[in-house]
C-alpha cells in the first residue's frame, strides 16, 4: 500500500502525498507548480486549452496521449509522465518542431488556445508508427478537441503538416530510454490509498483489491476516465470525498477476441477499442471517431459511458443493437445481463451497492447481418448527440428475419424500438412499401423531449429518417449518395 502518488515530471520522479480526492491536474499545474502555460478555457473538457500530454509505459513503448487536465484528477496520474507546453522546447531554447511550425504558419493569434493545440499536436507528433505527415483528416480529428476562436484553423492544420514532415526527433525521443526506465520503475503494482476513511483517493492495482474497496465503501465514487465524473466536480461543485480509481487495474483494460465476439474490460478506453470496433463495423469505428475528442477518447472508457447511464451516451444504443451483454461484479461474484436491461429509468441503473461494471461481451456480425449507426449533432466533431440511432438487421434471401434497433436521445434511457423491430420482420429493404409501418411504429416506441439540442418533433422525424436511411443503404444505395460524412466506401469508389 502506498499513500502517495508518483509522477514523472521533466525527467524526474515527483512524489505527492497531500492530494485532495478531487483535485484536478490543471489546478495542480497552475496553482501548485505555478506552471501557467497550460490554460483554463472552460473547465469542462470541451475547449482543449488545458490539454497536456500523458506518457504511459504500454506495449513496450512510451505512449503519449493528450488529455484535458481540467477534468483529470491528479490522483489518476499515478505512474504517468506529465508533459506540458513549457517542457517541449530544447533546453537551449530551440523550439519543438510543432512550436516552430505554428510560428512559421502564423497559427497563433490571441495565443490562448495555442498551448493546448501545441500539446495535441505534440501527441500526434509522437503517434505510434508515424514517419511522415498524417493525412489531413487525421490531423483535423486530432484537433477536434481544441477550439480556436481566432484563426479559423487553416494555419494550424498547415503547421501540423509541416511539423510532421519528418519522423519524430525531439528531446523526448532522445530521453526515451530514461523515461521508459522511470515509468517501469513506477509500475510497482502497489495499491494506492491517500486520505482517511471519510475522504480518500484510492487507486487499487488489482481486480480483487478493487472489488474489496467497492464493497467496503459502497458510497464511493468510481472513477474511470473521469470525463463524466470530472464535470460533477468542476461544474456541479459536488462534494465528492471518496474516490476509487479503476484505471490501474490491468485486468479491466483487456480486449479479447473470442472469434464470434469481443470481450472488453470495463476500463477499456475508446482509443483502446477503436480498431477492434472499426473492424467489427466501419460505422462503429466512425461513431468512436466522433465521440468526444482525442483527449476524451484517450481516457474515457466504454464502461464509464454505460455506467454513467446517460440517455444520450453514444455507446449504449450501438451496443444494444449489437446484442451486447453487460457483466457486473460484486466481490468474487458476478452476474450478466442484456445491456438494455441495465438502464431502468432516467438516472437509475441496475447496479447494487458494492457492485461495479466489470466488462462487456459484444457479438460480432454474422454474414447475414448488417449494421448501421448514425450520430446526429449540431457540429460533427466533439458534440453530444441530439439523436443517435443504431440498427442491426438480419437478412435472409432479401427478407429481414430479425431487427435490433436502439436509439439515444429519444427517451429517458437508451432504448430499443420494440414495435418497429417487430414490424420489420418480413420486410424487404429494397421495397420501401414493406417497411413504412415499421417507420411509423417508432412513434409508438418513443416520446422524445425538446431541449437545447433539438425539439421533440425533430428528434422523432430524424429517428424515422435514420431508420429509412439504414434500410435504403441495406438495399444497396452507396453512402456517397446517402451521407455527407462518415461514408463507408473508399473515396475513389464514390459516385458523383
Amino acid at each position, binding site marked *: 500500500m502506498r499513500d502517495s502518488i508518483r509522477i514523472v515530471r521533466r525527467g524526474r520522479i515527483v512524489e505527492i502525498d497531500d492530494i485532495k480526492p478531487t483535485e484536478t491536474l490543471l489546478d495542480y499545474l497552475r496553482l501548485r507548480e*505555478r506552471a*501557467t*502555460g*497550460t*490554460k483554463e*478555457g*472552460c*473547465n469542462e473538457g*470541451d*475547449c482543449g486549452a488545458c490539454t497536456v500530454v500523458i506518457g504511459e509505459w504500454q506495449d513496450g513503448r512510451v505512449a503519449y496521449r493528450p488529455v484535458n487536465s481540467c477534468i483529470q484528477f491528479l490522483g489518476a496520474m499515478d505512474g504517468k509522465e506529465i508533459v506540458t507546453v513549457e517542457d517541449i522546447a530544447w533546453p537551449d531554447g530551440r*523550439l519543438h518542431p510543432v*512550436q*516552430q511550425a*505554428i510560428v512559421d504558419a*502564423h497559427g*497563433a*493569434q*490571441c*495565443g*490562448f*488556445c*495555442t*498551448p493546448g493545440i*501545441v500539446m495535441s499536436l505534440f501527441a500526434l507528433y509522437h503517434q505510434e508508427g508515424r514517419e511522415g505527415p498524417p493525412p489531413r483528416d487525421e490531423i*483535423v480529428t486530432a484537433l*477536434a478537441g*481544441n*477550439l480556436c*476562436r*481566432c*484563426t*479559423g*484553423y*487553416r494555419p494550424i*492544420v498547415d503547421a501540423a503538416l509541416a511539423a510532421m514532415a519528418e519522423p519524430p526527433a525531439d528531446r523526448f525521443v532522445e530521453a526515451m530510454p530514461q523515461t521508459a526506465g522511470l515509468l517501469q520503475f513506477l509500475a510497482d503494482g502497489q495499491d494506492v490509498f491517500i486520505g482517511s476513511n471519510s475522504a480518500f483517493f484510492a487507486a487499487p492495482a488489482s481486480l480483487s483489491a478493487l472489488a474489496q474497496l467497492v464493497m467496503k465503501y459502497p458510497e464511493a465514487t468510481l472513477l474511470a476516465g473521469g470525463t463524466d465524473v470530472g464535470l460533477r466536480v468542476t*461544474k456541479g*461543485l459536488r462534494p465528492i470525498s471518496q474516490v476509487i480509481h479503476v484505471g490501474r487495474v490491468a485486468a479491466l483494460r483487456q480486449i479479447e477476441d473470442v472469434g464470434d465476439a469481443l470481450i472488453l474490460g470495463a476500463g477499456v478506453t475508446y482509443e483502446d477499442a477503436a480498431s477492434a470496433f472499426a473492424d467489427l463495423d466501419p460505422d462503429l469505428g466512425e461513431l468512436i471517431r466522433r465521440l468526444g475528442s482525442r483527449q476524451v477518447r484517450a481516457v474515457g472508457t466504454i464502461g464509464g459511458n454505460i455506467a454513467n447511464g446517460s440517455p444520450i451516451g453514444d455507446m449504449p444504443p450501438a451496443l444494444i443493437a449489437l446484442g451486447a451483454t453487460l457483466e457486473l461484479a460484486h466481490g468474487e461474484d458476478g452476474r450478466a445481463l442484456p445491456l438494455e436491461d441495465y438502464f431502468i429509468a432516467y438516472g437509475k441503473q441496475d447496479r447494487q451497492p458494492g457492485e461495479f461494471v466489470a466488462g462487456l461481451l459484444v457479438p460480432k456480425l454474422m454474414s447475414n447481418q448488417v449494421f448501421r449507426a448514425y450520430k*446526429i*449533432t*449540431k*457540429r*460533427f*466533431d*466533439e458534440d453530444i448527440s*441530439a439523436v443517435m440511432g443504431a440498427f442491426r438487421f438480419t437478412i435472409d434471401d432479401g427478407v429481414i428475419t430479425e431487427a435490433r434497433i436502439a436509439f439515444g436521445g429519444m427517451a429517458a434511457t437508451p432504448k430499443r424500438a420494440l414495435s418497429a423491430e417487430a414490424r420489420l420482420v418480413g420486410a424487404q429493404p429494397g421495397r420501401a412499401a414493406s417497411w413504412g409501418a415499421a417507420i411509423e411504429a417508432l412513434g409508438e416506441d418513443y416520446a422524445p423531449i425538446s431541449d*437545447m*439540442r433539438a*425539439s421533440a418533433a*425533430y428528434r422523432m422525424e*430524424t429517428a424515422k*429518417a*435514420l431508420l429509412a*436511411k439504414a434500410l*435504403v443503404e441495406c438495399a444497396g444505395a452507396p453512402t456517397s*449518395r*446517402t*451521407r*455527407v*460524412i462518415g461514408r463507408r466506401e473508399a473515396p475513389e469508389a464514390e459516385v*458523383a
Partner: protein
Amino acid sequence: MNAPESETSEAAVERAVHRSTPHDSAVLHVTGRAVYIDDMVEPTGTLHLAPGFCPDMARGRIRDIDLSRVRQAPGVVAVLTAADIPGRNDWSTSIGGDPIIAENEVEFWGEVLFCVVAETRDAARRATRLALFEGEAEPPVLTAEEAKAKGLRVLDDYGYGRGDVARSFASAQRRFDGVIRNGGQEHFYLEGQVALAIPGETGDMHVYSSTQHPSEVQHCVAHMLGVPNAMVTVEVRRMGGGFGGKESQASQWACLAALGARVTGRPCKLRLDRDDDMVMTGKRHDMTTAFSVAYDSSGKILAADIDFMARCGYSADLSGGVNDRTLFHADNAYFYPNVALKSERLKTNTVTNTAFRGFGGPQGILAAERIMDTLAIVTGIDPLEIRKRNFYGPGRDVTPYGQKVEDNILPELIADLERSCDYAKRRQECRAFNSKNRILRKGIALTPIKFGIAFTLTHLNQAGALVHVYADGSVHLNHGGTEMGQGLNTKVAQVAADAFGLPLERVRITATNTSKVPNTSATAASSGSDLNGMAALAACNEIKERMVAHLVSTTNAAPESVVFADGRVSHTGGSLSFADLAKSCYEGRVQLSAAGFYSTPKIHWDRQKAEGRPFLYFAYGAACAEVTIDTMTGEMKVDRVDILHDCGRSLNPAIDIGQIEGAFVQGMGWLTTEELVWDDKGRLATHAPSTYKIPTASDVPAIFNTRLWDGDNREETIHSSKAVGEPPLMLACSVFSAIFDAVASLKPGVVPPLDAPATPESIMRAVAFMRRSEA
C-alpha cells in the same frame, strides 16, 4: 489582378511594413510564456471573487437574500452587495441601467446580486451556491416579438429612407415580402473575463483587466469608487480574444475586483467561470427582419422596405450603435433607389446584447443577401447575376444614408473571384449533381460585402500614441489600442520600425496603460491599426523631425536628403547608425519622446437628419461557398470556400489573411452551428461549450483558398492599408446562401424559409416546407 503600385515599387530596401512578420508574441504563445492576467504572479494575499445570482429568476423582485451561509462558508473573507459600493453602481457605457450588483430588481437570469470574496477561487465559487433568496418571480419577456407587442424598448426606434416608397410599391408590378430570423452569438473568447485589482496608497487602484477598452474600465472603476479618474490606472498587455465581448462587458468584473480590493484592502482577482461568463455577459443581437421589395423585369430593385426587430436584452448597453450599424449595412453592396429602413430596439429579460465583430453589420448584410437570393428565385435569374445587376454603379452610387460610394471595386473583384473559383462551371456541376441525387443536395453561392470603416459615433475616431527613443537607439512604443490577437501591436511596431528605418526587434511595445495614453477609444470597429498606426506615425515623425534638425545643425546634411533605413541615417554628407544619432541627440539635449495624435478626417454624421459621411471608406470582399446537405437529417458539410478580400495595401499580409480566415469561420459558426437556446423560464440553456458549438477544425473545408485583393486604399490611411477585423466575418453569408441554394433546389420557384443558424433542425424545417409547397 491590379499591378502593384506606389509604395511597393519604390521599396528597393526591405521595409518593415507590407511584410508578413510573425505576431510579436508568437514564440511566447507557443511556449506558454505569454502572460495573461490569470497567469501573472499574484501579489501576496490575493483574494478571489465569484459572483452570485438567483438560480430561478429571470425577472422579478428579490425581497431578501440570506447570505449567512455564504459568509460562514470555508475560506470566505467578505460578501459584497450593492450597499458596499461607495460611488455609482453602474457599469454601463453612458446610458445607464447596468448595475454592478443589482439591489433587488432582477431583469435577467444571471444578474449579479452579490459577490463572494474568498481565499481561493474554489471556495468563492462554492460559497455562491449557498445563498437563499426570497422574492416574487414574474414571467420573463423573452422574444423580440413579445417585447414589441408589449411596447418594451431599451431605446427609441430609428430609421430613415429615401424616395417615395409607398408609391413605388403601389405602382410596381412585381414585389415580394419575406422574413428572416437570425440567432445571436456568444463571443467565446478562449480567455474568459478576468480582472485583478491592486489597491494602492491614498485610495488609488491599479486594475489589470482583459478589456478592449481600458479607458472605459478606468472611468467605470473611478465612478464606482467615487474617485477621480486620475486615481485609477488600467493596464492590459494582451487578451485571449475579445471580438467585441470585452468592449463594454469587461467593466463589471473590473469594478467588482476593485470593489473587493477597496473593501478588504487586499489584491482581488475575479476570473469568471466559463458558464457564468456565458450566462452573465452580452452577445450578438438576434433579430427578426421583415422586408418588402419591389423590382423591375430585369431583376433590379425599385424599392425596399426593411424592418429590423432586435432583441437587445434588459438594457441599452451598445445597442444604439449596433442597431444603427445594421441600418448602415442593410444595403450591403446594392443600390435601393427608394428605401425605408427601420430599426426597433426591444427590451427583453435576457442578458444585454452587445458588440460582436461586425457590430450589427452582419444582420443588415444577411437581410440584403436574403433579398438577393429571393429575387433570384422569383425572377429565375442566376443569384450572382442578380447581385451584379443591383450593385452600386455610376449614377446609382448613393447609400440610403446619403454617403456616396466613391471607391467601389466590387465589379472587378467579383469578376476576379468568379474566374478563379470557376463559379459558372461549378454551378452547373451542382445542378447536375442535384438532378441525380434525391437525398443529398448541393448548393453554391458567391456573395459580396461592402463594410463601412469608422466609428459611427464620430468623436470616437481619435487615437494617441507615446513613443520614446532611448539614447541607445532602441524604441519604446505605446498606443491606446489593445492587443487581443489581431496583431495590432505587431502592425503598429512595423509602422514605427518603418518610420525610423529600424529592424522590428528595435521597437518594443508594452502593455496598454491608461497612464501612458489617456482618453482612448475602444479597440473596436476594426479601427485599431487605422487609428493607432497613424497616431504612432505622427509621434515617430515628430521625433524624426527633431533628429533631422539636430543632424542638420551638427553636420552639413541637407534636410531633404536625410533617409532613415536599414538601421542607419544617411544624408548628403555621410551616414551614421540610428543609435549614434540617438546618442548624439541626447547629448545635444534634444527631446526624444513624443506623444502622437490622430483624428480621422472627412467624416461627419448627423443622426437626426440621417445624413453625412459616417465612413471614411469601405472595405470590400467576396466569397464563394459550396455545400452539401442531407435532406433526410438536415446535416450539412461545407465542401469548398474561395475568398478574395480587400485590405488595401496590407501592412502585414499574413496577419490580414489570418483575420480574414478567422472572421470567416467565426461568421460561419454564427450562421450554422452556433445556437443560443433559452428555456421558457428565461434561463440560457446553452451556457457551456458542451451545448454551444463554435466551429472546430473539421468544420473548415479542406479546400479553403484566401487571397488578398491587390490595390491601395484611395483614402489616406496608414500606408494605404484598410481595416480588416470585422468585414470578412460577413463573407460567411456565402455559406448561408449556399445552403439556401441547396434547399431551393428541391422545388424550383419556391423560396425556402431558412433561418439562421442553419442547424440540422433549421435546415429540415426549410426542407419540410419545400416538400409541402407547390411550385
